[in-house]
């Protein structure tokens, strides 16, 4: 299958007080459509930074990132925002649900921006919540849910726009073993049944073992290693 994500010679530096800190050095990485890739590496090696670049919430210092044929490093702020909402689903380590909104309303957030009617939105939200198995918790607020359930709501929010790519930054990092297991099974299903391309950062070898491909980052350099 074709490469849906192409990272070409990407470097990323941060500046503080005109001192340059290079975080990623000349990274090149291709991800095929429908692939499930895990990204591992020690803390501070640049995993989150790379994920942010690929998902279009940060920009590379050098290099190109081509996703589905679009060079997203060239897009301006607002086209990038639009592009993100159409193409990428985000799952964060700390779920990042809006506490004053119910599970239903949280999942509805990304499609509030679309032209969908209220009834259509309801249908989409219910489908997404159905996939993560939380139909019965629609009217619960985040604080009325367990960590694992919160993360499942977050995953429903990530897939409600039906994006081709899912990015997840340590999605199980804050969960106990059981809940983490459920989330991983869900990720696998999204990959297999719904053909989502998944890029997942993780510290957990067990989690990484669900992926087809594991890549290691070490101090900003990519080391290839296939499972």
């Amino acid at each position, binding site marked *: 299958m074709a490469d849906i994500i192409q990272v070409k010679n990407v470097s990323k530096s941060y500046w503080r007080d005109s001192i340059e800190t290079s975080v990623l050095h000349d990274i090149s990485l291709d991800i095929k459509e429908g692939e499930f890739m895990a990204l591992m590496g020690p803390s501070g090696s640049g995993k989150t930074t790379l994920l*942010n670049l690929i998902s279009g*919430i*940060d920009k590379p210092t050098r290099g190109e990132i081509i996703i589905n044929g679009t060079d997203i490093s060239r897009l301006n702020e*607002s086209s990038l*925002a*639009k592009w*993100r*909402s*159409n193409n990428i689903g*985000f799952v*964060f380590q700390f779920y*990042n649900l*809006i*506490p*004053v*909104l119910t599970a239903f*309303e949280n999942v509805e*957030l*990304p499609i*509030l*921006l679309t032209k969908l009617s209220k009834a259509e939105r309801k249908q989409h939200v219910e489908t997404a919540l159905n996939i993560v198995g939380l139909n019965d918790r629609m009217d619960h607020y985040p604080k009325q849910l367990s960590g694992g359930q919160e993360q499942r709501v977050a995953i429903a*929010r990530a897939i409600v726009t039906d994006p081709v790519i899912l990015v997840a930054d340590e999605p199980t990092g804050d969960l106990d073993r059981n809940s983490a297991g459920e989330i991983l099974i869900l990720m696998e299903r999204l990959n297999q049944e719904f053909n989502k391309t998944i890029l997942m950062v993780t510290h957990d070898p067990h989690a990484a073992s669900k992926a087809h491909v594991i890549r290691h980052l070490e101090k900003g350099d990519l080391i290839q290693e296939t499972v």
Partner: protein
Amino acid sequence: MKILKLIFKNSLRHKLRTALTIFGIAIAVIAFGLLRTVVTAWYSSVKAASANRLIVRQSVSFIFPLPYSYREKIAQVPGVKEVTFANWFGGTYIDKNNFFARLAVDADTYFEVYNEFVLPKDQLDTFKKERNSCVIGADIAKKYHLKLGDVITLDGDIYPGRWEFVVRGIYQPKFKSTDAMQMLFHWSYLDETMKQEMPGRAGDVGWFVVLINDPAQSASISNQIDGIFNNSTAETKTETEAAFQQGFIQSSSAIITSMNFISFVIIGIIMLVLGNTMIMSARERTREYAVLKTLGFSGKHLAGIILGESLLISFLGGGIGLLLTFPIVSGFSQFIPKGIFPVFEIEPITIIFSCGSAILIGIVAALFPIQRALTTRIVDGIRFSG
């Protein structure tokens, strides 16, 4: 709109903080409304003064009298249509708290010059004929339940003794700003009594009121009048009634100026109160705003959410404050002796000011948080733990 729910839910996130902020804004709006009402009431008492009336008083102070004989000389100045006069009587009606102006006036001309005191012809005729009669304003009649034929007894202080007057007329105010809290009686009655009891004070007039044909001439006519009495024992100072009124309440003018100033300081304080609340909220929600941006929400959306919440709070506070201002101002006016301000009401301009301020405050308080939400980069926002 779809994000209204989020705005509403956001504002309820810290119920106590939001409630306190709304309460604070409401209190400030009430204070603002009350202060503005005092200020506008003060100015309207000056505005109520007629432009074609001049007041001639003793040049040192209006507490010193002028001789009655000046009347003829003033009347001869070209451009003068009519000359009338009055004395401040003072005295006490029943008890000291009953404050209203009591003036000894020239019965023949006073109502001609003060044509905003509307008196039926038959009442005026009866008043003119009866030397110990008086005319009272409609507000006095209402407040003390007085009707034609009733007797008003005053305890004199400037003019000692017990004075009895029969009510023969009740005048209606022509304009809202017209003072309907005056009691007017015959100067000649007062003067006759003085002749008998204190001959030294007979013929004293408090001030003359000069009706002129053309308000544009007021300056030159004033100069001419004062010129006549230059170097006499009682020099005069002539000024327009508005200037006289202003001088009369000069002592309060510094207070009014500071009230004026404070009323706007209050607006500034509310801005800080709401601004503080909004900044705290925006800071706490740094991560959420970054998440919303990640999900594709634009800067405009975020600005709308923040501004919406700010306006919601400022409108609620402003609205509650404004609604409460009405009963509070009318309650307050009960404690102000009638006659100090001819009009004590919330003016439309005060309402406009309050509403305008609420909008302005809502916008200003949202500016900094919006700026912060827009300039925080997503990656920094997501990492933010605050």
